[in-house]
């Protein structure tokens, strides 16, 4: 159960003279929801960018399933089962919802040129499976009714859910969500809350979360890391974090 999935050690990211992330440690176990919180500009998204391969960290190690992934390319990391969403929704907005789901399964499909040109049985079967898989996840997030609509025409909450479904269809083991609740109304936030817990409990994946909505974070996290100005400030269970004087100071400022 409590096997270590992600183990980040002394992660540091420098841009020229600016140290955006300084010696951050993170541990995510199997079937765990872990949150990173911190004031704006604390370097949370930079941590995500380092973990997902969009940036190559200046120093530190990122072990995923006991394998060093720091320095790998973004697409290689995502193929290993570590997939992320973005702070601003990044959908293929001119494509339909189901097509978004198919693009995400690109590498599971039969991309052989000739089988596609002649629609060989294996090609058809793979496409059919991808469709089924897409439909299954759209149902899971409640988007099956709008499957043939253009992704850009969905409501904001639906777009957020589609982004998560699109990640899930790649069959990840660790899902990294960058402020998934930003811009959602309380009702939608509650649905999101339930969805994240369902992902952990029913689909047995781990979730690494960046979020500002404290009630969401405190409610669902198994473990919380606090970073401020790129440096780790504290970590612990939600209860411990709530009562940590350093954290309170960082959030409320020193008076």
């Amino acid at each position: 159960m409590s096997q270590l999935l992600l183990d980040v050690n002394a992660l540091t990211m420098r841009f020229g003279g600016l140290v955006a992330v300084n010696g951050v440690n993170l541990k995510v176990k199997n079937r765990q929801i872990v949150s990173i919180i911190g004031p704006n500009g604390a370097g949370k998204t930079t941590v995500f960018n380092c973990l997902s391969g969009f940036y190559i960290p200046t120093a530190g190690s990122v072990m995923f399933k006991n394998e060093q992934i720091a320095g790998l390319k973004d697409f290689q990391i995502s193929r290993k089962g570590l997939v992320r969403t973005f702070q601003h929704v990044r959908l293929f907005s001119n494509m339909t919802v189901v097509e978004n789901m198919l693009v995400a399964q690109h590498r599971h499909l039969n991309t052989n040129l000739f089988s596609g040109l002649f629609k060989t049985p294996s090609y058809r079967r793979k496409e059919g499976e991808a469709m089924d898989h897409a439909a299954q996840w759209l149902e899971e997030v409640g988007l099956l009714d709008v499957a043939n609509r253009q992704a850009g025409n969905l409501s904001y909450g639906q777009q957020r859910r589609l982004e998560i479904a699109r990640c899930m269809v790649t069959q990840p083991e660790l899902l990294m969500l960058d402020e998934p609740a930003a811009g959602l109304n309380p009702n939608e936030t509650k649905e999101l809350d339930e969805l994240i817990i369902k992902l952990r409990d029913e689909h047995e994946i781990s979730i690494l979360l960046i979020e500002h909505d404290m009630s969401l974070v405190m409610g669902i996290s198994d473990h919380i890391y606090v970073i401020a100005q790129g440096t780790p400030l504290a970590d612990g269970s939600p209860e411990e974090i709530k009562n940590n004087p350093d954290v309170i100071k960082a959030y409320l400022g020193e008076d």
Partner: protein
Amino acid sequence: MTNKFYNALFASGIAFILTCLMVGIKLDTEGTQLAIKGASAEQWTWIGLGIALVFLSQLFSDKIDAIFSKVPKPKLSNMLPKEQKMATLKPWLLALLIVGMLVWPFMVSRGSVDLATLALIYIMLGLGLNIVVGLAGLLDLGFVAFYAVGAYTYALLSQYFGMSFWACLPISAGLAALFGFILGFPVLRLRGDYLAIVTLGFGEIIRILLNNWTAVTGGPNGISGIDKPTLFGLEFSRRAKEEDTVLFHEFFGIDYSSSYKVIFLYLIAVILTIFVVYVINRLMRMPVGRAWEALREDEIACRSLGLNRTVIKLSAFTLGATTAGFAGAFFAARQGFISPESFIFIESAIILAIVVLGGMGSQVGVILAAIIMTILPELAREFSEYRMLLFGFLMVIMMRWRPQGLVPMKRPHLELNR
């Protein structure tokens, strides 16, 4: 109002500077000396009229805009039958079109058939570049290089090894693909504008090499006497070159006519074009086609989902090059003569203009634009010198007012049926 007046005055001043030296005064040689002469009175009148037009259009720009906004935009979509009806009609229309294309050449003059063959070559080129520019969103300014590779591959193989057109066709396409792959591999990781310049440079390099590697390519003199395609070994010439070749008209016991050859070439072009159209049509519906579209929309999201952007872009680049190689081999066979002159930058620009005017990503649009671009200059021969000027002008105008082209792209959407 005074503000508008100054604006108009400024604009006409600019127009004056732009035109007076370039159009109003001409370079001329007197003996060995360079001299200038003024333009004719007629040309000055045109300059004057042009400047006046700029002045007035700036002065009354509001009113002109108002008038233009009142002109209703024709809705092409309304003219087409409804979508459901279209679905049942489509196979019939396509069949009719193909039959028409096959029967038509027997009823018209040789010249028209020849022109149609040329149009088909441009259709293939346009469709090939459309994969790269329209579907994958990569600007390739050296497309003609792959066309040249295809043409020279066939010409050289035919000349040195006596290989037949049909054997060389896949080799030409394959070699062009290889060139595309080798060029694309390092460059496609970079930003789009770099790609444009590098491909532009690559096009020039290929031309320079063809021009200077005289021992093999014949240099500026090119290669002539390239064999025409045969029909299962039947030749279309009047007399057999060698003893054992069988001639088409002798085999069927009909009189020799030079138009058989022209029609035969046309029919080959039709078949090749249909093949290309089919392949691209399939590609758009295949995972790779979806990936191109996705990559064009949001590269970062693609990468986060495990798509390897270099491989996906490379596939588009290579497939485009393949199509060009294909068209190139046919071009060499049709002309019977090729030289570096046929593969200059202007050709790349024309093919790009076809894609842009037709509508990036739109197959129907590109086909239509290719036909217009080949036939229009023939119809308006007296304006032929203005052709490139017009192309350039149209590219600017289209980007400003109709960047989606004549027939905007309509992508086949996949539906979830339940």
